[in-house]
């Protein structure tokens, strides 16, 4: 049986990716805001009737006439104009059943392509809850193409679509091309004929929006939500972190008891266990942070946050369109920078790319958590807040303020970009689906552990080698590690970093930290484990750095990590997305200079204040 090529198209946030995941069993990222899919994704499935299907999930588009890079992908694939991509046999146009006025207009545009198509009324459960009644047969007759109902978030919700895929391909709609005005009139007629939308249901969203989008209370709510998130990162994670810490210590003790003294023992205990154990302990904090982010994504709150912040972003020369890429950068700057493809204005896109690395990615969390645990006492402030959580909140806040400051500075040089008003679709609120949140958490946990296995593990092994060889001379007076290759490298870098209060151990750890920021923590653990006089001293990195560094050094290092371009993947993706080594150089230089100056100022001010 020949494979049926099917393309999923639709407005952003109509549930295409959820439908794709449900049909193919994939685990692509799903969120309740527009612009999550920036490239097309592919998967396969076999229908209940045994028909093999190749399914493409295309980026959401508001129109096929648009010029933004991601919407162009959608149009080109539908028209068979992408090299190596077969023109789809069938276009499945997904529409949000709760927002037909907007989505049906796009369905009419797709129909104009003259390809076999079917319209899928997705989110029928939400429509039913709101009391929206849709006469499917009447709508199909009006559209001239088959219409099926789905609920992508439910296992049985895709059966009508699967049954249709088993049938013969739907016929192509025959008709004259429509002007924009005719399309608009057609949609209005269809809604009047086939859809009954009671006003009372939307009123619930309106009431919530009355608070959430309020110019003052909305901002208070946003700040409180972020604040709660960072408090929870510290308040909830401790027991799980203690458990991991005990497990790592157990493995270390067992290895120490089982292996004789020698290089293998040193590699396993001082290198691998110390390095990986030092990083893996932060998994609970990362998962708690993402639990909040995923729940907010799913609820429909985040586009409201973009709407609220549009005014402030405009002051910095950006618009709310930059919000989603910048928000994605809190997970990782790489997908954040890729998400800038949905920004049409090239100047705004470039500005967003250049400030995206300033957003606090999850790889910074282990570094922040380590330094905060070592230098900030765990005590309550005003009998309510955790001081460590407050400091973490301040670091995230500092990153956002810095990004806006840099964007504002750049806007001074790029001239008048003209008016680019933000048009943003505000989806309905809904409770986060536990399944999607769980999938997101499992994925985040898997990504973190994969990074531990594929980046941190090899970097730790290499660092152990560099920190162990050559051995110290017989008449050595300093610790052996200082005579090693890594020790020499640390001392060689020291003149550049000494004004910031950094030690040679920090200088060593900064180098492998370029591969990924969290490697810094593992590298530091290895360096201190090898430099320790006994195994007991190597157990607790937090205690060691608290004893070895001054508060000024720790704060300077935190300031360094707020700004520094300490991630090769980010640099590579800036190069790819800007297609310019010059702009990549600009990004690296400005971030490094900013990091050095911020760390220097922090170190000097802290020294002056602490006398």
């Amino acid at each position: 049986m020949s494979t049926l090529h099917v393309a999923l198209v639709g407005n952003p946030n109509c549930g295409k990716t959820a439908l794709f995941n449900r049909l193919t069993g994939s685990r692509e990222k799903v969120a309740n805001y527009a612009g999550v899919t920036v490239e097309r994704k592919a998967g396969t499935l076999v229908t209940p009737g045994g028909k093999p299907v190749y399914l493409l999930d295309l980026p959401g588009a508001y129109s096929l006439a648009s010029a933004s890079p991601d919407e162009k992908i959608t149009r080109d694939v539908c028209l068979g104009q992408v090299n190596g991509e077969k023109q789809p046999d069938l276009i499945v146009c997904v529409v949000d059943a709760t927002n037909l006025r907007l989505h049906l207009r796009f369905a009419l545009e797709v129909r104009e392509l003259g390809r076999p198509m079917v319209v899928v009324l997705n989110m029928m459960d939400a429509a039913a809850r709101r009391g929206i009644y849709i006469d499917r047969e009447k709508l199909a007759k009006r559209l001239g193409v088959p219409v099926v109902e789905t609920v992508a978030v439910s296992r049985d919700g895709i059966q009508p679509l699967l049954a249709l895929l088993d049938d013969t391909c739907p016929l192509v709609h025959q008709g004259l091309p429509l002007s924009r005005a005719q399309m608009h009139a057609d949609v209005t007629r269809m809604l009047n004929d086939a859809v009954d939308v009671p006003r009372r249901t939307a009123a619930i969203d309106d009431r919530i929006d009355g608070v959430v989008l309020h110019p003052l209370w909305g901002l208070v709510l946003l700040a409180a939500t972020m604040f709660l998130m960072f408090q929870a990162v510290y308040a909830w994670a401790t027991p799980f972190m203690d458990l991991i810490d005990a497990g790592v210590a157990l493995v270390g003790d067992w290895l120490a008891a089982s292996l004789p003294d020698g290089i293998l023992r040193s590699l396993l205990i001082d290198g691998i266990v110390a390095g990986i154990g030092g990083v893996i302990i932060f998994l609970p904090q990362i998962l708690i942070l993402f639990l909040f982010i995923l729940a907010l994504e799913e609820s429909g709150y985040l586009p409201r946050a973009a709407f609220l912040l549009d005014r402030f972003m405009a002051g910095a020369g950006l618009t709310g369109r930059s919000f989603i890429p910048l928000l994605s950068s809190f997970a990782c700057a790489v997908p954040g920078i890729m998400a800038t493809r949905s920004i049409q204005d090239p100047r705004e896109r470039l500005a967003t790319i250049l400030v995206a690395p300033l957003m606090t990615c999850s790889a910074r969390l282990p570094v922040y958590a380590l330094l905060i645990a070592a230098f900030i006492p765990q005590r309550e402030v005003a009998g309510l807040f955790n001081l460590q959580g407050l400091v973490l909140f301040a670091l995230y806040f500092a990153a956002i303020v810095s990004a806006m400051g840099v964007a504002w500075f750049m806007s001074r040089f790029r001239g008048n970009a003209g008016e680019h008003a933000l048009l943003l679709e505000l989806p309905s609120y809904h409770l986060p689906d536990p399944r999607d949140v769980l999938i997101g958490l499992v994925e985040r946990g898997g990504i973190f552990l994969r990074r531990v296995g594929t980046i941190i593990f090899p970097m730790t092994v290499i660092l152990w080698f560099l920190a162990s060889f050559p051995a110290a001379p017989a008449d050595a007076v300093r610790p052996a590690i200082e005579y090693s290759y890594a020790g020499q490298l640390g001392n060689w870098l020291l003149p550049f970093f000494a004004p910031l209060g950094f030690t040679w151990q920090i200088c060593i750890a900064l180098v492998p930290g370029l591969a990924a920021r969290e490697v810094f923590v593992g590298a530091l653990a290895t360096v201190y484990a090898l430099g320790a006089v006994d195994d007991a001293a190597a157990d607790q990195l937090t205690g060691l750095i608290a004893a070895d560094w001054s508060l000024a050094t720790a704060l300077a290092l935190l300031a360094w990590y707020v700004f520094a371009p300490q991630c090769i993947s980010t640099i590579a993706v800036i190069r790819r997305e800007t297609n310019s080594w010059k702009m990549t150089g600009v990004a690296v230089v400005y971030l490094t200079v900013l990091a050095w100056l911020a760390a220097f100022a922090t170190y000097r001010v802290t020294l002056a204040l602490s006398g």
Partner: protein
Amino acid sequence: MHANAEFAIVALLVGGSLFWVARAAWRGIRAANDAAAGCGGCKACGSCPTAVPRR
């Protein structure tokens, strides 16, 4: 454990790690230089929005 076996295991781990890091660096350089390639779907970034590489 025999000293030679110990040395062989350590050499294997260090050599393998060096090879792995060099390979990742080479792939990164190639991807950075290929602006038309789009995302390679390596998933190393942490939240890759692409399931398969673009052709």
